[in-house]
């Protein structure tokens, strides 16, 4: 009996030790689910709530994927929210410009504005990549500077106001539901996550950025085109953010230069919790997707308590980030000692 208990404990311990990040997320998930089961079972465990949650997370989920890619190379992309807002503003302007005289949007309108948005995201990402790879500006500063720049362009384009009165067609397609059940935002997220997962695990590009993140100098001396790889990675992150911006445009049905300011911290939190090492070289997309889901549940759960103001959320995100970083520190120390 006692021996049996010991072996279960050892097994659990083994499992925890092998994949600390996933185990920690499972624990967090259980804590959130159990406390919601006790506090607000009917409201939380409803079909509508889950449908809303999967429609909400693609916004910052897409941006988190971009940050994840950059973090695997040992960098970071702090401009994701800036890119997303710039894209949603310019796509919004294009949409409005495409509206015909009778107030209807031509059939190609949505496609054109989305393609333009993605191209803008790509250009913004390439700019980040050039700053990081060619000018060797530390990624943190390069992307903080470009965030400010994109924010500035967004403010100039809108003169500081919001762009609203968009044609309804866009929002009803992107924020709509396929077969009346699956939110379109979720489909966009799943496609992008699938592409990135494929790139990371099945292509040489994926293997190379892990090598780059593990040891930049070694990667350079073994003949990798580090400049090209970095530019590609930041460009990919720009595309992710652009998609995030297009989803935001549909969700709010308006665009503004300063939407989603809290997302930067939230995305970093997601990526770090998902087990991506800020120093590069380590991290899997499954961990990041899992951590997106857990945080969305936590956030939706908190929203069900009106007495918890949004300001407390900033405190909670900050604390979770600090705790996660501290735990990572201890688990990495343990690995090193072993």
């Amino acid at each position, binding site marked *: 009996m006692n021996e049996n208990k010991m072996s279960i404990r050892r097994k659990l311990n083994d499992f925890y030790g092998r994949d600390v990040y996933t185990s920690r997320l499972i624990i967090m998930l259980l804590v959130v689910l159990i406390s919601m089961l006790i506090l607000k079972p009917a409201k939380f465990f409803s079909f509508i709530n889950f449908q809303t949650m999967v429609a909400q997370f693609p916004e910052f989920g897409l941006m988190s994927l971009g940050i994840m890619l950059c973090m695997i190379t040992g960098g970071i992309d702090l401009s994701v929210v800036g890119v997303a807002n710039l894209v949603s503003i310019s796509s919004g302007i294009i949409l409005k410009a495409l509206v015909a005289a009778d107030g209807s949007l031509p059939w190609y309108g949505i496609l054109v504005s989305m393609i333009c948005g993605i191209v803008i995201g790509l250009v913004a990402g390439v700019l980040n990549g050039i700053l990081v790879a060619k*000018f060797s*500006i530390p990624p943190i500063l390069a992307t903080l500077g470009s965030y400010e720049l994109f924010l500035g362009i967004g403010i*100039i384009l809108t*003169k500081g106001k919001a762009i609203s009165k968009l044609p309804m067609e866009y929002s009803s397609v992107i924020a709509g539901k396929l077969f009346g059940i699956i939110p379109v935002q979720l489909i966009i997220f799943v496609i992008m996550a699938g592409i990135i997962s494929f790139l990371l695990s099945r292509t040489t590009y994926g293997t190379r950025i892990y090598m780059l993140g593990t040891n930049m100098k070694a990667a350079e001396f073994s003949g990798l085109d580090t400049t090209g790889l970095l530019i590609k990675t930041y460009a990919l992150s720009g595309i992710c953010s652009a998609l995030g911006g297009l989803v935001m445009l549909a969700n709010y049905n308006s665009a503004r230069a300063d939407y989603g300011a809290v997302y930067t911290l939230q995305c970093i939190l997601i990526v770090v919790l998902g087990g991506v090492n*800020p120093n590069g070289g380590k991290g899997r997309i499954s961990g990041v997707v899992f951590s997106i889901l857990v945080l969305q549940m936590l956030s939706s759960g908190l929203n069900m308590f009106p007495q918890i103001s949004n300001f407390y959320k900033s405190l909670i995100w900050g604390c979770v980030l600090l705790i996660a*970083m501290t735990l990572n520190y201890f688990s990495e120390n343990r690995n090193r000692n072993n």
Partner: protein
Amino acid sequence: MMGKKMKGLLSKHEFYISLVIVLLCIMIEIRSGQFFTPNNLVDLSSALIVPGLFAIGAFMVIVSGGIDVSFPALASLSVYATTRILTDINYKGGILLPIVMVLVFGALLGAFNGFFIAKLKLPTMIITLGTSSVFKGIMQGVLNSTQIPNIPEGMKNFGTAALFVAKNEQLGLTSRMPVAVLVLIVAIGLAFFVLRYTMFGRAIYAIGGNETSAYRAGFNVGRTKFILYVIVGAVSSLAGLIRTCMMGQMHPTNMLGMEMMIIAGVVLGGVAITGGDGTLTGCMLGTILIVMVQNSLILLGVPTYWQEFFLGALIIVGTGISAMQVLRNRKRLVSKKLGEESS
């Protein structure tokens, strides 16, 4: 001899940034004719006080190889707490008690940063992003911060006390030079002394240059970093207090978001973002440039919504130049075959 001196001057970052400042002054003067008026110069220097103090803190952190984005949130929290307590007890005294209180709060919050960065050796950028969110959450959530329109008399008097008054004869405008400018001057003097002549100051440069070497050379890296973040917390909070005093009221969220502008100024001043290199003079010149751009866009007739764009462009250009210099120096070192590759 003369030529050598010229060459030394031309290779200095401070020379170029001064050149840019002079050019900008002349440009604004030509466009508006209002730059070299006594009241504009006094206004500029009084606008420099708070960013200048913040910049000293940010500068020391960057030299030590870190980066701190939490100081505006930190300062907001400690100043808000101080002002709230003092107005609640109906404080009537002078400026001394508020200063002491804000320094203590600032040092405590700085120690919170320092714990994660120095003891646990976690990446400064991500940690300070986290702590800044925590500080904001405590201020707006737990303390339920609101605007405090009537700050204690002593604080208000300190904010409005003038060293002298400058007058613009042409337009009939007057500007006061606040007493608080003395705080900035003393702080610059102290920082200069500490960085140049004390073991602690040299340790900051050594750690920023190469942490492992600094450790091997016998510097106590952990303790130095911890003390550094405590000092930065105290200095930033003092800056926040001065800002509140000068405005005559406490806006809790008014300072948030200033971090980028300050870091941009420090980096524009030629301080290496990778740490270990940079002068206080350069840092101050960079801050002056940023403050001038912010204050003078209106004189130049540029709409204010262009400000963010210029700031971003300045950060990218500034960091770009600084990063290129690091790269060039490294190449030069390699070509001279002076030892192995660094880092």
